[in-house]
């Protein structure tokens, strides 16, 4: 049940998505990945990709144009 952080602040699309895909492969089932982003396009495509993979996703707006995406590796 470990928690990992992925700092994608200042990175434009599609880098946050590609990095998230890569990082999720390294995680064990039950782990959580927190992706930090500040590009609104990643706010759309990262959760979309995660939901398509049946992961649990939660988005939190932590500041002006800054978000944290929580992805649970459920399977």
């Amino acid at each position, binding site marked *: 049940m470990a928690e990992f952080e992925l700092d994608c*602040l*200042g*990175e434009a699309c*599609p*880098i946050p998505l*590609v*990095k998230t895909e*890569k990082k999720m492969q390294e995680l064990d089932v039950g782990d959580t990945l927190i992706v930090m982003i*500040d*590009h*609104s396009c990643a*706010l*759309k495509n990262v959760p979309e990709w995660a939901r398509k993979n049946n992961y649990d996703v939660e988005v939190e707006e932590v*500041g*002006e*144009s*800054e978000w944290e995406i929580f992805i649970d590796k459920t399977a």
Partner: protein
Amino acid sequence: MKLSSNKYYQTWFKNPWTYVTGAILLSIFQLVTIATTDGAWGVTGPFAVWGAWVVQAFGGSVDHWYFFSTESGRAALDRTFLTDPASVRNLGVIIGALLATLLASQFKFKKIKNLRQVGAAVFGGLLMGYGSRIAFGCNIGALYSGISNLSVSGWVFALFMFAGAFVGSKLLVKYFMQ
């Protein structure tokens, strides 16, 4: 009640509109553009004209440039910023984007991660600018307006744009993923 939790504020200003809503609005306004300005929607054309105006302001001449030797090229040079619909529209795009991001309270100066980002942005910008001038425009003027006005050139542009995007994404993964 806080404005940020008002559901109408969230629907209209905070949450992104769907792609379908955007597509419908773009279709309507490109028709308005053609009806009111007698020209299809384009973005990068005025950049070349702005550049020419700067050259002229410093006493230079662009008369012998092939790009401005056409009738429409000369006509564009004779206009001013405020009488050139495309220039005013570009300004509107910038002001509108700023307004939208401020209303959603998502304005932020993003930090630059490394010099590589700057280099790629400058080099990519030059390639896009040059490419759009030797084509019939950018992905708006050549692709969107081309296809929506039933021109084959728009589809040809689309084909090569996908090829370019494919190569670009390979380069992106190779040089920007560490």
